[in-house]
């Protein structure tokens, strides 16, 4: 398994898209952080960039990568290795190269310009989002029959979590505003990894005015520390559950 991870990494670290992704992240980070003297604001802008781009780029790149590797996967599977090992190795190689791109592209500028716990949490948020959406991409890959459909589903999933989910949440909050729905809202947020990421980061920045309804709820009900732990655990679930399902489905998939 280590061998496969190593060679997938070797391949992906020389991938042009990953290089360009790293450079764009780095340029964005440096320019955003230099725009304002207030580092908190810079971090917030970077957070928005992360929440907007990381999910969609990760899920698209990963889905396409998994589909393009079908023949390579077959070749590996014709060797005496377990199916689970092959698919997990491909996931780990894929997710860690994208995570590395984020860590370098955003992490390095942060380290030099705004080092501190908040910056660390932002990098953690980006890395977790990368792992989550790679995991979802794997699930899409094992569930869908062909590449075109897979990419379509990946796009829909990414747009659902970045745009549609919040719209539905707001509709929900407005229509039930007469009832005590605070806890329900927290529960619903757990179903969107991007919201979890936003809340996690905003809890660190302590800019309550910018936290919005959901962030304020987290603070009120869970407090900063518990809220952070809650959102991190939920995000870890978002990595593990799709991954576990993918491996199970892949065991019986026809190639």
């Amino acid at each position, binding site marked *: 398994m280590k061998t496969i991870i190593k060679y997938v990494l070797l391949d992906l670290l020389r991938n042009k898209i990953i290089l360009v992704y790293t450079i764009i992240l780095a340029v964005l980070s440096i320019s955003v952080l230099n725009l304002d003297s207030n580092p908190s604001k810079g971090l917030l802008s970077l957070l928005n960039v992360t929440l907007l781009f990381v999910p969609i780029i990760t899920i698209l790149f990963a889905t396409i990568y998994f589909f393009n*590797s*079908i*023949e390579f996967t*077959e*070749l590996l599977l*014709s060797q*005496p290795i377990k199916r689970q090992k092959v698919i997990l190795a491909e996931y780990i190689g894929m997710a860690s190269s994208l995570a590395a791109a984020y860590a370098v592209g955003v992490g390095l500028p942060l380290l030099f310009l705004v080092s501190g716990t908040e910056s660390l949490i932002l990098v953690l948020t980006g890395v977790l989002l990368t792992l989550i959406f790679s995991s979802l991409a794997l699930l899409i890959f094992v569930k869908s029959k062909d590449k075109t459909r897979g990419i379509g589903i990946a796009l829909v999933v990414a747009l659902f979590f970045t745009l549609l989910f919040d719209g539905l949440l707001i509709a929900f909050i407005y229509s039930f505003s007469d009832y005590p729905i605070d806890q329900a809202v927290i529960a619903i947020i757990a179903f969107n990894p991007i919201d979890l990421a936003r809340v996690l980061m905003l809890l660190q920045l302590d800019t309550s005015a910018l936290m919005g309804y959901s962030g304020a709820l987290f603070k009120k009900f869970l407090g900063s520390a518990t809220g952070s732990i809650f959102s991190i655990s939920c995000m870890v679930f978002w990595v593990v559950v799709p991954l576990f399902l993918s491996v199970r489905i892949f065991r019986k998939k026809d*190639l």
Partner: protein
Amino acid sequence: MIRIEGLTKSFGKFKALDNINLQMQEGQAISLLGPNGSGKTTLIKSILGLVIPEKGKITINNHVVREDWAYRSKIGYMPQIGRYPDNMTIEQVIKMIKEIRKDHTQYDEELIYGFGLDKMKTKTMRSLSGGTRQKVSACLAFLFSPDIYILDEPTAGLDPLSSELLKEKMVKERAAGKLILITSHVLSDLEGIASHIIYLQDGNLMFYKTVEELQASTGESKLNKVIAQVMRTELPAMKHN
């Protein structure tokens, strides 16, 4: 060596394989023939465990395919389309497979040198032509001197010289008592290699005979004429039964 019992597989409503029973022994070179979509690749992939059968059982050297993945160490597989990670070099691909197969320390690298891949080992897979990628696939299939070779359209896309080289290698391996299973539409390429013919159509096994038997029943000697004759006369007769 390979025993297939009652193998059935469908994709949706389409029956790719319908109750196939086969036995293949060492020293045989079996050519798997049939029109496009007749189930050849599905059969090969079932043997490799890439396609999970609905019904039936495949055993290889008494290992049941579904239960035990270790049997695949005995198989060298050359896929129809070889696609590799873009940025890996030929050398890295070969090294990776060697590292995965730690059980082996002896390698059969005759084809690597024969095809001249050792001289372009630093080229990335993306930059290679389809034929060269095919050569890499062939080298990987023969690398560990397995007991069973499964070759899916091995000579398609190869230049005449390389194609000859690969055929010579197959003849040599067969003489060494290996089992070779080949699908190919280029019948002239199978001349002198194939000892048995399996003919599939619409997922059904039409016949499984030795080349001599077929030559005797058709009165032809060239393989492509033999098969053409069989397709004209014997297959329609079989369908009516």
